[in-house]
């Protein structure tokens, strides 16, 4: 136990820092600030055929072609109409730039170790490695995401292809 606790502490100790919070289907999520490259408003997405649904397409960001995924669809949430608050966060995933569409971007928070909880376990069947932890700020729980773990390798490959 102690090890686990220490492991957890180490884990949580490693998680403290600045997080970029955003809202997705009335839930607040957080994202490591270092992973986020840029936040942009919604642009025209050029859809790429023969790609999974959650891959919306590609965008042209200052000459660079970046694939865009809809996080809602990835998480299996119902699709929502894009509003003026909908933004695209450009993240760096294992060296690959991609954009994720979120409902709104809130703020940059500096979360301390004390406010982070390790991710909950819902049994061994459900995979929760994409959650870094649960942040607790002013009574509000924000799910801190591990962006690297959201997309599987398959997805990554597809993404690469799409971007090519």
């Amino acid at each position, binding site marked *: 136990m102690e090890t686990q606790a220490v492991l957890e502490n180490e884990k949580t100790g490693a998680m403290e820092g600045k997080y970029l919070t955003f809202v997705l289907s009335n839930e607040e999520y957080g994202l490591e600030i270092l992973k986020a490259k840029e936040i942009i408003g919604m642009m025209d997405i050029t859809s790429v055929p023969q790609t999974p649904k959650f891959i919306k397409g590609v965008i042209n960001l200052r000459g660079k072609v970046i694939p865009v995924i809809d996080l809602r669809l990835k998480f299996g949430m119902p699709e929502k109409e894009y509003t003026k608050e909908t933004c695209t966060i450009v993240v760096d995933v294992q060296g690959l730039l991609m954009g994720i569409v979120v409902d709104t*971007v809130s*703020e*940059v928070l500096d979360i301390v170790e004390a406010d982070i909880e390790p991710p909950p376990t819902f049994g061994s069947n459900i995979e929760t490695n994409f959650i870094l932890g649960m942040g607790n700020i002013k009574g509000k729980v924000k799910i801190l995401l591990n962006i690297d773990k959201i997309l599987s390798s398959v997805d990554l490959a597809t993404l690469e292809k799409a971007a090519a």
Partner: protein
Amino acid sequence: MFKDMKLGVKLGLGFSMVALILVVAVLTSIWQVGKTSTVTNRVMTLRAPTSQSSLAMLNGINHSLAALRGWIILSKDKFKKERAKAWNDEINPSLKTMKTFAVNWTNPKNVERLRIIEENLKKFNQFQIEIEDIAQTVDNTPALKILFVQAAPQASILIGNITKMIDAELKVSMQDSWNTYQGDVARRQELLLRIKADFGYGGLIHKFKNYVLRGKPKYLESIRALHLSITETIGEYSSVNGLTAEEKSALAVVQETANKYMSAADHVSTLLTGEDTMVSDLDKAVKIDDSPAIAGFEVLNSRYEALVSEKGKHMTGAVKRKEILGMMADVRGTTGLGLANIRAYLLSGDEKFRKLFEKFWAKNTTRFADLKKNVHLLTDEQKNAFKEFSDARKKFNPLPPKMFKIRGSLEWNLANRWLGTKAAPTAFKIKTQLDAMQANQVQLMATDIKEADRLTGVLNKLEWALLFAGIVLSAVIGFFITRGITKPINRIIAELTEGSSQVSAASSQISSSSQSLASGASQQAASLEETSSSLEQMTSMADQNAKNTREAASLANGATKTAEKGLEAMQRMTESIDSIKKSSDETARIIKTIDEIAFQTNLLALNAAVEAARAGEAGKGFAVVAEEVRNLAQRSAEAARTTSQMIEESQNNADSGVKVSEEVAVSLNEINENVKKVTSLVNQVASSTDEQARGVSEMNQAVTQMDSITQQNAASAEESASASEELNAQAGQLDSVVDDLAQVVGGRSINGSNGNGSRPHLSQDTTDVMPKKQHELHEPAHQAPPKKQLKELQEAKTVKADEVIPMDDGDFKDF
């Protein structure tokens, strides 16, 4: 037998008898009057005119004598005319008249008288003519004749000659007057001295010599001046009195010499100014001979001396002449005065004039002698005149005594003498005869007048007798004829009266029936009036309805218009609300833009935070800035949200406003609809009202027709009433005519009226008339029919009237 004759015959007979009486009377009068008139005629045409003519003749004689006297005294022609007139207009005509009457005279003595008168008138006229002819002629007064014919001519010769002598004397004195003489002498002296001065030393000749020697122009000027003075003085000298021929020629010579000097001076001047002048030329120029002038001066001087020496002679001569003038003046004066006194004495006969004449004549004789002594001093003219004077005086001298003698005698004025001694006695003789004739005529006239009176008396008695006879006969005849005429006329009168009463009854019946007709018609008219008035009311109400309807229609129109206006306003409101919405939409858009900007700024801030995080330690400050920027962005986002909320609210309000206006529009439309319905209803009402009015007017027309018919009925009833009135009037007239006739015949009226025939008016009950008439007719008139008979007649007539015109009120009801 008298009664059987015709009316005309009766009248004729009666009038002819009256006429016969009249004729007899008139003839008798004429015969008597004729006798009277003969006598009066005699008086008028014989006696009176004769008497008148003798008076006229007497007047004529007196007039002629007066005119003659006037002629003698005043010698105006009008007296001659008057005398002639007296003879022509009075004496001669009256003589002629008397001669004409003399044929009829009854007294032979008067004829003899007339003969004497005629004879003497001839003589009288002759005397008058003689007197008239001589009067005012110079022969009438022999003394005056001598004066005019003999004395006066001589006297005028005397006066003429002495006057001639006096005039001549004055002329001589004037010529030889001492003063004139003195003046002439003095004048000569003065002028001669002046000429001498101008000519001699310091004068013309001296100046000329100086000029020749020295040549100075001032000398030429003085020469010119002296020459002018000399010429002037010579001119004056020529006009002096008593200039002799020698003197005149002397003056001319002097003038000539002066002229020579003047022209020489001029010549010298030209020579002096010329360049080629030689002394010899000058010498020639100045050679002038003075000797003629000097001789002339001598002549003038000697004349002057001669005149001076005559002085003494003139003085003595002048004094003596004055004496002679005095003598001549005395002679003339006394001659004139003497003549005047002769005249005065002859005219007046006053001795003082004779004495004055003798005084003057004595003086005349004395002065005449004086003049005779000085006859040698007279001029030839005067001597001739004096001779004639002496001759005339010799002739004149014996005449005054002769004249005076005649003046003293009785035969001084022949006209007066003859008047007294010849004309007057003859006139007296004539007058005596005329007076005798006059007296005789008066006597005869008296006798004739007495005869005339007697005859008129006889005529008077005769007239009275005839008058009486005539009256009696006329009365008798008149009575019988009148009776014969009036009986039949009275009978006719009675019949006429009956007839008129019948007519009257009938007319009263007609009147009553027409009265009832008229009353029925008037009732009808009254009810028609009521109907008409109620129709009027209906018409007025219908009119009122129509008016109200029109008002309602107009109001509905107004409402429609108002609703339309409301709709319009609604539309405008909607438009404005739309514009509000548009502007708030725009505002929302802008807010959205702001919101977007805020969002983008937020993103930018987040990006900045990311970069700051990436920067690590170095980016901490930047992270703060990014945080602030994000805060700012959030704030603007907040503001934008609030604003958009507000805009939403206002949009909602605008929407609700629009809804409300729509509701309002709906209600307005409803109103419009209702108004349209109302309008249509009102129109319906209007049309029905019109129909109503039409119906009423038709009814009105019908009523009017009925009214007119009723009026016609009433008019006809009136007419028949008036016709019956007329009939009544005619009956009345007939009555009056009958009355007149009765009056003419019987002297009184049968119908009790004063003859204008007025019957009682038919509006009264006709039964009143009947009893009165019956009563009247019962008065006794000697020609009236029996009373009973008349009453029956009247009753019968009353019944007859009703039967003739069977009318009752029942008939009128149907009408």
